[in-house]
């Protein structure tokens, strides 16, 4: 109670300009709330004074007069501030496109590109830019809630804010390009243009945004594809040319060598084919990465399909595949069926590549996990790294975990795993060389589905590095190697559309 009066008192003696500053009230109605209260409190105090100390009644009258002047001045300032702060005068009868048609505001709301109207009073008050209108697209894209919000809390890119200021106070039209990053990068072009204001200190500006992610992605994809293709195809091509030279030259009549060379050439051509296939599918996936998937897919079904297709290959290698998880059809996901299949396929392919003869590959599906549970490490002694995490959190996730008992991957190699063409040093992937794109494809697909990817691994501690480098990573797990079970496990998790049954 005391505190409140004190604050009122301090307000009364602040210079007037303060009200105008604060007059950018986004809810000016509330100002009225305390005004009669402060005056009433003052009068009560004075009346009490008049009763208690009647010796100098003129003093009370003087004080009353001062109070009245103050109240009058304050009222005037508040009225002025309110006039300035009031949202753009909304005509009681909105202007309509046709007498029976929609109002212009409704038309603006229906525009698919985000449109905002921004107001500002003082150039120096850099944070004081308010969104006084935002259409539906803008509200969705930039998370605007409520009526009048601060511009900076929805959009904080300095270049756009600068452009808005230029439109507000310099009357300059401009367009700027900016990027909002997240799990999915988005490119925007923002147009700013001043709007005419009839009276008052408030200035208005129009801010129109357009999503240019598609165009930029196509550009980038083309550049990336060319760079990757030309770089990665060079090695197999060089080896092909080399063998052709040899076959033309001194190996011409050597039947044994010819057969051998032709085999190698076939393998190289095969690798080139796979590389092009993977590069193309990676490009395709990247193109659609910002488009959320539609359709339904089932992880259990995908796992079963993959296990069927891999069974012959696994038998040849003497590796057994096991599956634990719910029955197919019980936990459908909102997902692209083919892409989900590819995730499971690539992860299982990888596992099969590194699994030693006679070992087991475990596929496991876990449902109704929270984000924390999905990410959490299963085995505290393993090195774990989150390769991808969603920037939005859903309530529940379905996790697929593919575990092989291969040599494992040492901790220091984990961060770069999902990078394209990255190969872990000294790791042999068997006779059939991969393209180095499998995990990159997996990562992009999962990102499109707003899921995440975690890798856990236990590997033999390094021996060569200690001689090579003068330090030892303190985190490297050093367990006697004779009873160390090495493994690598990838867990991909996808948002689950359904809540679990309580």
């Amino acid at each position, binding site marked *: 109670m005391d*505190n*409140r009066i004190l*604050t*009122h008192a*301090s*307000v009364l003696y602040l210079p007037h300009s*303060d*009200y105008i*500053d*604060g007059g*950018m*009230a986004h*809810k*000016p109605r*509330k*100002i009225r*709330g*305390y005004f009669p209260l402060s005056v009433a409190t003052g009068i009560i105090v004075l009346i009490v004074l008049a009763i208690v100390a009647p010796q100098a009644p003129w003093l009370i009258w003087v004080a009353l007069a001062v109070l009245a002047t103050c109240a009058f001045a304050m009222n005037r300032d508040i009225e002025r501030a309110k006039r300035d702060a009031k949202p753009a005068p909304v005509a009681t009868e909105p202007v309509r496109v046709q007498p029976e048609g929609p109002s212009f505001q409704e038309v603006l709301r229906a525009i698919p590109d985000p449109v905002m109207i921004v107001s500002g009073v003082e150039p120096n*008050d*850099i*944070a*004081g830019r308010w969104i006084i209108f935002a259409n539906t697209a803008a509200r969705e894209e930039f998370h605007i809630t409520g009526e009048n919000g*601060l511009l*900076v*809390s929805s959009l*904080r*890119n*300095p*270049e756009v*804010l600068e452009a808005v200021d230029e439109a507000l106070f310099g009357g300059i039209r401009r367009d700027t390009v900016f*990027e909002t*990053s*997240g799990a999915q990068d988005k490119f925007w072009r923002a147009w700013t243009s001043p709007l005419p204001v009839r009276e008052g200190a408030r200035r208005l500006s129009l801010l129109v945004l357009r999503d240019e992610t598609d165009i930029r992605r196509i550009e980038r994809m083309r550049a990336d594809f060319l760079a990757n293709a030309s770089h990665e195809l060079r090695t197999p091509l060089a080896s092909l040319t080399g063998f052709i030279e040899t076959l033309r030259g001194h190996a011409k009549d050597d039947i044994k060598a010819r057969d051998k060379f032709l085999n190698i050439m076939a393998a190289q051509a095969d690798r080139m084919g796979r590389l092009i296939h993977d590069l193309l599918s990676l490009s395709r996936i990247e193109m659609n990465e910002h488009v959320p998937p539609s359709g339904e897919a089932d992880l259990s079904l995908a796992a079963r399909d993959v296990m069927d297709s891999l069974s012959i290959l696994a038998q040849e290698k003497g590796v057994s595949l096991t599956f634990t998880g719910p029955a197919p059809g019980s936990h459908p996901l909102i997902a692209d069926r083919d892409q989900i299949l590819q995730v499971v396929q690539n992860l299982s392919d990888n596992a099969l590549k590194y699994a030693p003869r006679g070992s087991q590959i475990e596929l496991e599906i876990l449902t109704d996990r929270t984000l924390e549970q999905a990410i959490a490490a299963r085995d505290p002694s393993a090195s774990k*790294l*989150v390769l991808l*995490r969603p*920037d939005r959190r859903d309530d529940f996730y379905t996790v697929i975990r593919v575990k092989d008992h291969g040599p494992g991957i040492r*901790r*220091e*190699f*984990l*961060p*770069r795993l999902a*990078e394209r063409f990255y190969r872990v040093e000294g790791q042999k992937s068997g006779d059939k060389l991969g393209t180095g794109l499998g995990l990159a494809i997996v990562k992009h697909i999962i990102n499109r589905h707003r899921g995440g990817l975690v890798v856990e691994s236990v590997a033999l501690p390094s021996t060569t590095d200690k001689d090579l*480098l003068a*330090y030892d*990573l*303190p*985190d490297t797990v050093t367990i006697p190697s004779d009873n160390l079970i090495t493994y690598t496990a990838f867990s991909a998790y996808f948002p689950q559309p359904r809540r679990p049954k309580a």
Partner: protein
Amino acid sequence: MNTHIVKTYGEELDQLSAEVVLMGGLAEAQVADAVEAVARRDVALAQSVVVRDQKLDELEKDIERKCIRLIALRQPMAADLRKTVAAMKIATSLERTGDLAKNIAKRSMVIAEAEPMSPLTRSIERMGKLVSSRLRDVLDAYKSGKLDMAMAVWSSDTEVDEHYNALFRELLTYMMGDPRTISACTHILFMAKNLERIGDHATNMAEHIHYEITGEDYVEDRPKSSTF
């Protein structure tokens, strides 16, 4: 948003956090631009980052002044006081972030003169992206007052450390392989260290947000893998 009877007081507080968010946006852009300058060997962009750093310094001073004025004139209590103090602390962290970004930009100008070392600058780019996302998340958490979001940033700092360690090894191999790359590699190493420091500032900011919202210090031990 706030329930102060004296509206200007509440507005001053809102204004304060809006200015911190604004400053955050600027710091974010500085980090992103500095990293891009490294990746694209863009000297002009690096220079603009160096010049723009002054704006961050000014904003920090401005926020500090406003906080002190607010404390002096309004004597904020409880949540308001925490909000004020957190704004001041976050502004300081953001200013430091800006300094580190400036340093990255300066170093990028030096390595732009040397031979391109794309695998290494790509690593910097990747790390920069990770750190930027951390910064973005923490600012989003501040803006919307979401405690769980701030804590998610706080607990995932090991990823940045992990990247730093990986890059450190990579650099060592490079330098041992070809001593002519030592000077450029050293610059890249410092860049990586700066990025790692920016990640630390993001976790600090997450702690300030925790303090602002709950009024308690975050005492739990931060998951940390040691770096060099």
